[in-house]
């Protein structure tokens, strides 16, 4: 799903994967229907392009809440997949990468689940590049790498 832009060729084919990959937990008949496959993440987001919190950073940390773990049997499709995957804390970008979602879709779904209390979101520090203590910690952590 790429087009040649006005100023140059598309990126090398290996860099751009097919737009959607399927979550594994859905019923077989839905998995085979290509129209349903393409529509679903957008149906779930009700066609919105602006998420509940449209400033959610791609590096924001996400983890499943206790409410989310309890609600898991009643969740479906992408909501369920995300709640399961986020039992391990990870970033919004990782949610997208591991589940095969476009990062914009991952942001919307994560924001919706956070609003519903199923996920806990930890946002990055405010202006980290001007936080001397934080910079020192990052530097020390990097220096420790062999």
């Amino acid at each position, binding site marked *: 799903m790429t087009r040649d*832009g*006005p100023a140059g060729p598309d990126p090398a084919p290996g860099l751009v994967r097919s737009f959607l990959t399927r979550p594994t937990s859905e019923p077989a008949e839905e998995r085979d229907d290509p129209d349903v496959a393409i529509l679903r993440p957008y149906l779930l987001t009700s066609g919105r392009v602006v998420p509940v919190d449209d400033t959610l*950073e791609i590096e924001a940390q996400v983890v499943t809440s206790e409410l989310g773990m309890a609600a898991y049997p009643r969740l479906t499709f992408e909501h369920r997949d995300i709640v399961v995957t986020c039992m391990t804390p990870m*970033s919004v970008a990782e949610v*997208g990468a591991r589940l095969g979602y476009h990062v*914009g879709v991952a942001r919307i779904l994560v924001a919706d689940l956070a609003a519903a209390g199923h996920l806990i979101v930890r946002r990055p520090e405010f202006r980290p*590049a001007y936080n001397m203590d934080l910079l020192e910690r*990052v530097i020390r952590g*990097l220096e420790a790498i062999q």
Partner: protein
Amino acid sequence: MPVKIVIAGGFGVGKTTAVSAISEITPLTTEATMTSVSVDVDATDGVPDKTTTTVALDFGCITLDDALKLYLFGTPGQDRFGFMWRDLTNGALGALVIVDARRLDECYPAVDYFEQIGLPFVVAVNLFHGELTYDLNNIRWALAMSHDIPLITFDARVRSSVRNALLSVLSCTKERARRHREKIQVVYR
């Protein structure tokens, strides 16, 4: 707590190699959309055309201590800048602009952009065969790069080399933070 550094540069310069060398997770990829404004203005209504491209966003992660994760996000290798670049650079500690000595001009768009938005960055020449075939001063001249922009060499395949390159970026970030703190103190005096 997450922090991030942007890894920029043209196609095939070694961004994914560099991220792989240091990331503790195998680098992941997610799709992102870049919207760029075409230079051609539509003749009928005067509104510039927008082009939407789906690109791959590669990234890795290093756990620095029990509460701190450093994400390395590779920029999509396009020279058209769109809204995804804002998301990548907002709140970043700095950027590493990787350049191939044989294709210097491919780093210009990234260097221009980071200068424009004031993000600390370092230009790092990737030594493909472990040797520098061009003189760093010639490279600096060819890039019309002022002497206060750090220019280093590194080997994207070697973890300690990538680590040192990232440390150079952080030293720029720290310097800017220090200058900013001094400016604030002057205001209060």
